[in-house]
Structures are given as structure tokens and as C-alpha cells.
């Protein structure tokens, strides 16, 4: 029997104390943080009582300001005020210039990595996103009164690997312990409590500021199964604003070149007009142009609806495609959940209701619903509800594949495959004596390489010279629960191996993260070393806690006395090393515990699988 540990009074959390975990909706236009308090999930307001944090960051020589105050600066200093940064995540410079040719920022043209010049430095979209996350973390710690154990951050279901990786990097940079990336629509379904009681298919229609997502989910006994996802990463309420903006420009015959201030001002007016049209039948838009001329434009609701009709239709088409992918008839959909501020537009509600033949759910604030669902999931993941049966089964949003001869893409894992997943595919050489092979990893549905997103390129070298077609190169893709990919390639006859964590094309490598951490620490006047030490100490105690409870449950049954002693010794060593301040040493001791408990972990897994199988047959009887 393993000995139980007792912590010194006041040194460790009591076993039943709740851990603080938050859900974060990192949105294009606004971001929110929510937590479960007294059994209730709610979004956390700032000191002024505002729940929505505008996803806007303003950089000046001395300070970085996030949120409402930064938004005020957008008109005055558009060049240094980064708005809708989510749209730029995971993209390179040429893609961004092609997609959004009118952005006011000064891009650093020196590399293909996207960097924006602000006073005194350059920032990339990951750092800007991290600034937003840091602000939310601070807000949460202030209102919850302690440090956070972990966070769930949401992403559009349609986000590709580069975008997910960037979001994960941003969370790490902001000092959050990321428990999971959660798809926004899944979070919304959790918020509506559709996991309890409901059985059947539901659709989540999420029209946010910058992205549109449609997800078809099946719920049964607490299991959320994502059947299919679809959408458009470049379509949202901001486009409604843009359409009104274009309309204003056309009506008043403004020149193509506007001052950056006027452009921002008119976009703000367009947004206000859109919001007003949810209630009113017409709005007046008044402004003074760069030449000092006053203008007045009237926009009626009927006109507005005609203007946005093509965009709404585009979303409905994506809905039909997602239903088809899920192999579900429209009338089999039990509930439709509305998410995102843009679903307040009456035309959107009406047409979505018409397509699915039922009134959509709108009782939870569509701006808050995702953060609330994320908070509920975070609360479970951190272990506050040990008996929760809820399980989220997610799918891969976009197919993963490799480049083959002739610039074609060979799919290795098709989209909508349940993740985690591992798949291997074999390829061979094209020329006699070929000794190297370029592995080009792609994501997307199109056949031509140039139409897919390039995730990574790496070379497998050292293939022994053979005749064309004789070598067997086995490429294995592994996708984790967050939808993030790693790739290994191996030549089978020789065992020449090459491995890559897919990041280089768009994400960051570890050293870049460390550099960014250092520079952010410098500004925040925090101590890098202290933070890393603390992180490792927390990790050590987390590992010890989880292993201790595993030993208590299964130690005696699954381990010999010697094995038990060895694990116990390694754990004791780790805990004593963790009291000191040698970061590397703590890391090593954690790895050692991990290694020595591997066989135990495998036996526990087999045991629970056998239990699950026998439980199944008992149910059958």
C-alpha cells in the first residue's frame, strides 16, 4: 500500500479545494473570459462592469493598451492600433496583403513572417493575441482572487493547423496553462446544456465579427460528437460593416483614397448603423470628409438586407454542405444554436430559422455563449467535477496530405476524421538512385498543391540509392486532441528517420517563443527565471498529485513491490528537487518520473479498457 502524502499546513491546496479555471473566447472583434463560480458559469466583467473586451491593442513607445481604451485610439492612431488580429493569425505577409489590401498597418517587409511596425518594436499576430489573453488573465485573477490553474481557449472549428498552433503559442506566451483548444460551436452547445437530456443532432450557426462557422453535432449520453464542420474563416459581421462602408462611399462619391482616420471613423459608423438596424427601420449616417464637406446618408433596413443577402446566402450554402457531410437531413436537426453578435441581425435569424424549419435558440447572449461553454469545460478538465461524464469528440476540420509528383496533393487524413488520429501512408522514389525526398505537408480540400495551405516542408535524407520505386517511405501523421499535427517519415528498409512538429511555415519554434517571452518579460518587469521555475514546480506537483491518486487506486493491483518502490523513490526525488530552484534539474526529475511510470500508465490504460468492454457486455445482458 502506497503511503499517502500530507502537505505542510498552508503549503498545498486541500484535496477538495476548487481549482480556478477559466474559459476564454478569443474573438475577432471582442474577447471574453468566464469562470464557474458557485456552480454557475458566468463571464467576468472588468472594473467598470464591462464583459466584452474589444480585441484591440494599441502600442505606443511606453505602454501597451488593450481593449476599450485602445479602441478609442483606433481613429487617432490607426497605424499602431491592431484590430481584428485573429484574422491575421497563422497567415504570412503575402496572404494578408491579398486578403486585406487596405489594412493601415506598416508591415515589416523583410521576412515572409508577418510583423507589424509599432513604436520602438515590431509585433506579430501571436504577440498581439497574447497581449489580449494577458489582459483577460489579469482580469480573471483579479476577480477570482487567485492564480489560475488552467484555461480553455476557443477557436473557430474551421481553423487550420497553423491558426490553432498560433493560438496555442499565444496562450503560452501569455502565461496561461492551456488545458485545451475548444471549438467555438462545441462550447456554445455546452453552454446551452445540450449535453444533458438532449439526444440527437444539433446545428451551431456562429456568425462572429470575422469568421463564420457551421457545425453539426450529435449528442448522446454526454458525448458530443462533431459530425462535420464548415464555414469561412474570412466572413463575418465585419464584412457587413464593410458593405455599409462601401455603400456610404458610393452614395457620397468619396474618392478611393481616404485618410486612415476617416476610413476608421466610417467603419465605426457603419457598425453602429448595422446595430441600430436590428431595431430601427432606417438610420442616418452623418460625417465630414477629408475635404471638409458634410455628408448625410440614409440607410433603410430593406436596403441593408438587400446588401447583405449574398453574404447570408453564402452561409446558408455552407450549412447545407455541412449537413450533407454529416449525412443528416435538414429535418433531423433538433436544435439550432445561434452564436456571435452578427446573429442579432433579424435577416440572419429569419433565414436560418427558415432553412432548418425551427426557431433558433437565442436565450443566452450570443456574444457570451462561447466563453460560458469554455468555462464549463475548463472546470471539468481541471478536475473540479470528477464524476462528469461529458466527453467531446472533435474532428479534423480540414484534410491533411502530402505533395506528390506533378504538384498534386495526396490526402492522408480526410477532414471530419475523429481526432486524436494517427495515419501512415507509404510513398516511393521517382528516380533511380534518389537519396533524398522532400516531404511537403499540406492542409486543405483542393487537389493542387498551390490551392492548399502549406504547413511544413522538410527533407528526408540518407535514403540508400535504389532503383526508382524500390524505396518505401512511410510517413506517419499524428493529430492530437487540439487538432495539432506532428509528422514522422521513415525509410522502411534502412530505418532512416526524420521527425517534425509541424510549425515552421507559420508557427514559431521553441527558441522564438523563448525570445518573445523574454521581450515581453522585459516590458512587464517580471523575472523570466522566476516564471520558468514556478511553472516547473507547478508541473511537478501536478504530476505528483495525479500519480499519487493513480497509485492509490491501482498501485497494489498492477505493480510489483519493487516497481512500486521505484516509482515512489523517483517521485520523492522529484518533490525534493522541486523545493530547490534548479529549473533544469526539476525538468529532468519530472521526465524521470514520467519514464519510470510508463509501464504503470500502460497497465492502467489496459485495465480501464477491459473494464469498459466488460461493462459493455454486462449492459448487453
Amino acid at each position, binding site marked *: 500500500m502506497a503511503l499517502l502524502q500530507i502537505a505542510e499546513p498552508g503549503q498545498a491546496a486541500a484535496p477538495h479545494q476548487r481549482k480556478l479555471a477559466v474559459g476564454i473566447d478569443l474573438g475577432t472583434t471582442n474577447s471574453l473570459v468566464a469562470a464557474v463560480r458557485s456552480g454557475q458559469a458566468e463571464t467576468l466583467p472588468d472594473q467598470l462592469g464591462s464583459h466584452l473586451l474589444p480585441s484591440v491593442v494599441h502600442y505606443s513607445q511606453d505602454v501597451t493598451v488593450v481593449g476599450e481604451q485602445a479602441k478609442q485610439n483606433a481613429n487617432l492612431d490607426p497605424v499602431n492600433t491592431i484590430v481584428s488580429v485573429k484574422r491575421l493569425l497563422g497567415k504570412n505577409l503575402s496572404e494578408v496583403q491579398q486578403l486585406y489590401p487596405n489594412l493601415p498597418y506598416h508591415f515589416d517587409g523583410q521576412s515572409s513572417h508577418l510583423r507589424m511596425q509599432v513604436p520602438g518594436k515590431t509585433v506579430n499576430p501571436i504577440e498581439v493575441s497574447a497581449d489580449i489573453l494577458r489582459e483577460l488573465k489579469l482580469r480573471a485573477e483579479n476577480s477570482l482572487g487567485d492564480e489560475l490553474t488552467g484555461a480553455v481557449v476557443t477557436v473557430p472549428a474551421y481553423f487550420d493547423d497553423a491558426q490553432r498552433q498560433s493560438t496555442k503559442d499565444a496562450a503560452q506566451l501569455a502565461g496561461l496553462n492551456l488545458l*485545451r483548444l475548444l471549438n467555438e460551436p462545441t462550447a456554445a452547445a455546452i453552454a446551452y446544456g445540450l449535453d444533458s437530456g438532449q439526444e440527437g443532432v444539433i446545428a451551431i450557426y456562429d456568425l462572429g465579427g470575422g469568421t463564420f462557422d457551421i457545425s453539426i453535432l450529435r449528442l448522446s449520453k454526454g458525448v458530443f460528437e462533431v459530425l462535420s464542420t464548415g464555414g469561412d474563416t474570412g466572413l463575418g459581421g465585419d464584412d457587413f460593416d464593410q458593405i455599409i462602408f462601401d455603400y456610404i462611399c458610393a452614395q457620397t462619391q468619396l474618392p478611393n483614397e481616404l485618410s486612415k482616420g476617416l476610413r476608421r471613423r466610417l467603419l465605426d459608423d457603419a457598425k453602429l448603423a448595422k446595430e441600430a438596424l436590428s431595431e430601427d427601420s432606417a438610420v442616418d449616417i452623418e460625417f465630414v470628409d477629408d475635404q471638409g464637406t458634410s455628408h448625410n446618408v440614409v440607410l433603410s433596413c430593406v436596403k441593408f438586407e438587400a446588401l447583405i443577402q449574398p453574404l447570408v446566402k453564402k452561409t446558408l450554402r455552407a450549412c447545407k454542405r455541412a449537413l450533407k457531410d454529416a449525412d443528416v437531413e435538414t429535418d433531423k436537426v433538433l436544435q439550432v444554436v445561434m452564436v456571435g453578435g452578427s446573429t442579432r441581425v433579424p435577416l440572419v435569424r429569419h433565414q436560418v430559422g427558415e432553412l432548418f424549419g425551427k426557431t433558433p435558440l437565442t436565450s443566452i447572449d450570443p456574444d457570451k455563449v462561447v466563453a460560458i461553454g469554455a468555462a464549463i469545460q475548463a472546470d471539468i478538465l481541471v478536475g473540479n467535477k470528477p464524476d462528469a461524464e461529458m466527453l467531446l469528440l472533435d474532428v479534423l476540420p480540414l484534410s491533411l496530405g502530402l505533395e506528390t509528383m506533378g504538384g498534386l496533393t495526396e490526402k492522408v487524413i480526410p477532414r471530419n476524421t475523429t481526432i*486524436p488520429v494517427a495515419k501512415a501512408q507509404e510513398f516511393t522514389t521517382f528516380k533511380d538512385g534518389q537519396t533524398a525526398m522532400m516531404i511537403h505537408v499540406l492542409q486543405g480540400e483542393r487537389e493542387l498543391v498551390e490551392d492548399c495551405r502549406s504547413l511544413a516542408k522538410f527533407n528526408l535524407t540518407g535514403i540508400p540509392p535504389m532503383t526508382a520505386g524500390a524505396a518505401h517511405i512511410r510517413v506517419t501523421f499524428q493529430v492530437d486532441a487540439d487538432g495539432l499535427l506532428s509528422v514522422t517519415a521513415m525509410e522502411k528498409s534502412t530505418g532512416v528517420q526524420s521527425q517534425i512538429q509541424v510549425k515552421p511555415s507559420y508557427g514559431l519554434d521553441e527558441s522564438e517563443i523563448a525570445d518573445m517571452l523574454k521581450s515581453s518579460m522585459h516590458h512587464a518587469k517580471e523575472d523570466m527565471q522566476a516564471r520558468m521555475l514556478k511553472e516547473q514546480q507547478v508541473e511537478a506537483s501536478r504530476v505528483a498529485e495525479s500519480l499519487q491518486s493513480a497509485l492509490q487506486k491501482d498501485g497494489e493491483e498492477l505493480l510489483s513491490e519493487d516497481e512500486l518502490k521505484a516509482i515512489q523513490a523517483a517521485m520523492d526525488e522529484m518533490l525534493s528537487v522541486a523545493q530547490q530552484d534548479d529549473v533544469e534539474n526539476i525538468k529532468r526529475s519530472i521526465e524521470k518520473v*514520467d519514464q519510470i511510470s510508463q509501464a504503470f500508465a500502460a497497465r492502467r490504460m489496459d485495465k480501464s479498457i477491459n*473494464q469498459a468492454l466488460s461493462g459493455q457486455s454486462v449492459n448487453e445482458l
Partner: protein
Amino acid sequence: MNFFALFGLEASYDIDTTKLAATYKSLAQVTHPDKFSQSGGAEKLMAVQKNAQVNDGYQVLKNPLSRAEHLLSLRGIDMQHETKTLQDPSFLMQQMEWRESLEETSNAADPEAALAALDAELAIQTKLQYSQLADILKADTEQANLDAANRIRKLKFMEKLHREIELKEDALLDD
């Protein structure tokens, strides 16, 4: 990897798919990485790998064609990396006829109806092949397994044709 064993099933083509789905959910509950979010690295990695196997196994067993293929691979016939094509002149003729019919639907007076008719005919043939495949797979003899492999190759073609018909129907709807 024997997926039938992973799911506690006898290796056989005829399986209870409702039970399979229920078993999948139980196995997902105990292997999903989310259940290990507070655990150490070794356990987390184990969960990712095990859960990936469970997911893969479910996909393979759920689909009758991949289930038959998996059963054959357990019997020593690996069709995964084969380059061999089907040697069956009468089926080749049938294939060509179907392809021609598919192309001709574009010129039909009512392309949608023509596609539906072709799809219906294909569905009857596919169903027949599946039920014969099920019978053949009951015996584990060399002759039966080779016969089954041929039928799987035919069914792969038929499923592919079915998808092409669907794509063409989609294209009609989008216009």
C-alpha cells in the same frame, strides 16, 4: 493491430453496429486525452496513442468495406498497398457502361432524373455485392478470401462511382 479484439468482438464481417457504436463510446470515455489533462506526460501520450487506435478502429469497423478489408488483412491478404488491378472482363465492360451513362446524363433532358436512375441501378448492384461478400467471408479458405478480395475491389469502384454521381448531383443543385 486487430481492431476486432480492441473492441472485444469476434473477427467476423457480420457485427452488430449498434453495439459497436456503444462500445466505441465506452472506449472513448476511458482513452480520450481530456480524461488525462491533469496527468503526467507519459500518461497523456499513452492516451493520445490509444485513443487514436480506438478512433481508427471504429472508422474501420463501422464501414462495411474497410471492415471486410481489415478482416482479410487479419487472414493474411493485404489489399492496402496493392497496385494490382481487377482482372474481370465482364465487370470491366460493366464499368465502362456505367461511366458512359454517367457522362451521358449531362445531355439528358432531365439530368437530375437520369442521375437518380443510374444511382438506383448502381445501388441494387452494390447491395447484391455486399450480401454476397458477407456470405463468402463466412468461410476462411484461400479460395473464399481471394474471391472476397475481388468483390472488395469491385465494391471500391462502385462506391467511387456513387460518390461521383453525388458530386454531379451537388453541382446541379448549386447552379
